[in-house]
């Protein structure tokens, strides 16, 4: 028989205001096995924990029930407290009387009654609890970073600097991500390339970092400390070892019709190309959909001109398989497609562009060499209208409900840079709110308004029509309460940002969760912002939510610290709540093996009784994650899950239905 102590937390007034804690404590004493009960204002506090520890020691408790907040919050706290005074941590159970009782019910009578029932269920469970010992598993001292933008690069450099091997897997031919396309960065206006490209080179030349570019992670198996990833390396049709990145092939390529992704499709590139001058790795890549050789079998001009003999039309897809201890997701973002937002006429008018396109138009390495020219007639625009919140903060299905966070600041940057370089240009900005929380951000925005004379108009744009080359912008000015019509030469849309389309498949592959907007969910929104709920998977950058470069870098470094903390351990403690088979009942039918998502179950021949050799299920405890699928599948009831045994759950059912 267990000797159980029941501890009821007031949680200040969070619980005590709706639940009569004294009555719960009193009721507990009538439950089988309960020898002690107590209530206290803050059970999770130092003194609350001491109360539990003392009771365990003085009363010789063999089981503990804490009626408090969600076990997702403090189960670990109380288990640790129990462990510190010699009680097996898995003899502690939590009855959730805050989130599931006091916070959702108003009637004291009803809430107290429910709290008593939940306490009773927890006591019934603890009566059947058994001491569990956690096993150990080894940690592979290598990290995988998925995505090679600024977030992935920063995370990789920090992990590598701590002395661990890192692989960056980037799906594009070069690392650098969105930041490499930017011209200048707010609020300091330093050039993006000048601060990013040295980091790209640092990553490439770091002895602990391997960049696997033009590749995608195909599948991931395993668990924290011991993941196995299959990485698919797409063929470049260029031998990486031989290519020097001289660019002669790209010059000679006669196919000139492909849109240049780096310049947002505003100019063209050859079928063989180097993404941009500072690409890392600086290697050519052939786009087989555009290459004349691939389409007709004739050409091969690049091959003939390559002095390094690097062109290889027969290159095949490669699979790299590697083991990792930790995985960092840094899959980044894209501006949304504007086809659904008809009112701005983005798809009909060449002179309605996105902010990222404007970045390229202003960049010295861009399609116009850094001279701001309208895409339609290559004339200098004299009146420019910026529209904020395009697709952000909207309620229509084509809109995103959230704020994209970076647009207010980059629009202030753009307008300021344009006014600085072309003082004869008039600049209007339509906005819903200007959001500038951040160090030196509001000062920056005010400079745009006060010093550079940018016209900020509070209101939204309803329609943009093309009238003989002029873009007539119909908007509203909410402060003046009037309609505004501006004949603009160029319209720049601050398109909302959304997670990269690969986010969903990556999340599924890693069993990490994403929210309704496809942003990765953190383990705790406040206290564990860089970890995913899946152990060993960490989040870096915009894949977790919209953020600017400084925030991305900060989060990237934070994720790196978490990874380093994990990799610095030689062994990890496993979850002891795993499946186990009763060999006397097992008939070796293989049902459980088929449903196990982790391949944790195998079959061994064992002497279950003297002279009775039988094929029985064997659970690899280091691999089992404790889902319990096998327990229900087992036709003979041999399989059970420690910590959530059939008997324990039945006892809870009984206690609730009593």
């Amino acid at each position, binding site marked *: 028989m267990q000797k159980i102590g029941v501890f009821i937390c007031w949680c200040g007034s969070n619980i005590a205001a709706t639940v009569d804690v004294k009555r719960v404590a009193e009721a507990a004493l009538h439950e089988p096995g309960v020898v002690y009960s107590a209530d206290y204002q803050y059970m999770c506090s130092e003194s609350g924990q001491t109360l539990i520890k003392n009771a365990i020691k003085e009363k010789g408790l063999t089981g503990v029930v804490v009626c408090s907040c969600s076990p997702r919050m403090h189960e670990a706290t109380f288990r640790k407290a129990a462990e510190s005074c010699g009680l097996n941590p898995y003899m502690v159970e939590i009855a959730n009387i805050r*989130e*599931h009782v006091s*916070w*959702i019910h108003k009637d004291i009578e009803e809430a107290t009654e429910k709290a008593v029932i939940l306490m009773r269920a927890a006591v019934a469970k603890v009566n059947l609890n058994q001491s569990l010992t956690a096993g150990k598993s080894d940690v592979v001292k290598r990290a995988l970073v998925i995505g090679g933008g600024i977030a992935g690069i920063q995370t990789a450099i920090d992990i590598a600097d701590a002395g661990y091997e890192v692989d960056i897997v980037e799906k594009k031919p070069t690392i650098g991500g969105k930041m490499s396309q930017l011209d200048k960065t707010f609020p300091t206006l330093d050039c993006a390339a000048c601060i990013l490209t040295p980091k790209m080179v640092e990553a490439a030349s770091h002895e602990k970092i391997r960049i696997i570019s033009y590749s995608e992670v195909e599948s991931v198996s395993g668990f924290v400390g011991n993941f196995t990833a299959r990485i698919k390396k797409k063929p470049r049709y260029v031998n990486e070892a031989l290519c020097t990145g001289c660019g002669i092939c790209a010059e000679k390529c006669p196919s000139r019709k492909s849109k240049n992704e780096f310049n947002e499709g505003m100019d063209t590139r050859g079928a063989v190309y180097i993404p941009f001058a500072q690409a890392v790795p600086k290697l050519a890549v052939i786009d087989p959909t555009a290459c004349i050789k691939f389409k007709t079998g004739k050409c091969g001009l690049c091959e003939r001109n390559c002095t390094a003999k690097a062109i290889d039309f027969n290159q095949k897809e490669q699979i790299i398989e590697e083991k990792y201890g930790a995985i960092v997701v840094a899959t980044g973002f894209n501006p949304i497609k504007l086809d659904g937002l008809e009112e701005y006429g983005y798809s009909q008018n060449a002179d309605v562009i996105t902010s990222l396109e404007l970045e390229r138009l202003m960049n010295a390495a861009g399609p116009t060499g850094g001279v701001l020219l309208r895409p339609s007639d290559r004339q200098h625009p004299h009146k420019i209208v910026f529209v904020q919140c395009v697709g952000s903060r909207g309620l229509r299905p084509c809109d995103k409900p959230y704020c994209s966070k970076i647009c207010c600041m980059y629009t202030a940057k753009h307008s300021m840079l344009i006014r600085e370089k072309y003082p004869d240009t008039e600049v209007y900005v339509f906005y819903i709110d200007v959001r500038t929380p951040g160090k030196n951000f509001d000062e920056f925005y005010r400079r745009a308004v006060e010093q550079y004379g940018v016209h900020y108009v509070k209101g939204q744009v309803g329609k943009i029509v093309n009238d003989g080359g002029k873009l007539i912008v119909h908007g509203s000015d909410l402060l003046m309460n009037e309609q505004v019509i501006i004949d603009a030469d160029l319209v720049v849309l601050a398109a909302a940002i959304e997670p990269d389309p690969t986010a969903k498949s990556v999340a599924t592959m890693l*069993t990490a969760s994403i929210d309704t907007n496809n942003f990765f969910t953190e383990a705790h929104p406040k206290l564990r912002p860089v970890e995913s709920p*899946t152990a060993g998977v960490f989040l870096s950058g915009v894949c977790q939510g919209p953020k600017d470069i400084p925030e991305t870098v900060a989060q990237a470094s934070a994720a790196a610290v978490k990874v380093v903390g994990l990799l610095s351990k030689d062994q990890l403690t496993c979850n002891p709540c795993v499946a186990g088979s009763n060999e006397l009942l097992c008939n070796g039918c293989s049902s459980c093996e088929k449903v196990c998502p982790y391949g944790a179950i195998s079959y061994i021949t064992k002497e279950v009784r003297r002279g009775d050799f039988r094929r029985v299920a064997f659970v690899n405890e280091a691999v089992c994650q404790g889902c319990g*699928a096998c327990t229900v599948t087992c036709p003979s009831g041999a399989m059970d*899950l420690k910590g959530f045994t059939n008997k324990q759950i039945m006892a809870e059912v009984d206690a609730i239905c009593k």
Partner: protein
Amino acid sequence: MQVENKEFKPTIVAFCCNWCSYAGADLAGTGRMQYPANVKIIRVPCSCRVNPTFILRAFQRGADGVIMCGCHPGDCHYTSGNYYARRRMTMLFDFLDYLGIEKGRTRVEWVSAAEGARFASVMNEFVKNVTELGPNKRITDLRCKMEKEGE
């Protein structure tokens, strides 16, 4: 009869998976979203841990409705657990219906960790449905009832 129905408060057992639905229930709590106190939640690691015998036991012991909540299809923390659960429950609920436990007393719902409001609304609706169906008498074990009354 009407009076009896008004006073009738069904006993409802909710099995919630640890990763999505239990967290969703926590979020309903954090958001102070009300749902009836009749709903009592049992935490399981995954919806695939819910053995049909647990549900039978609940009805046998006098539960008036049982609801099982898991992660949305495709989002299972254990990759595929909720698919197993879905199949099992489809079969079980058909079987229970045959035994006279109406479909309205049994339910499978997918509630993610971000759907506190959905958790509350699902529970409100389910409790309402079960209340309308009245007490479950079909497979209640009379011995349990006698025990209860004996107390």
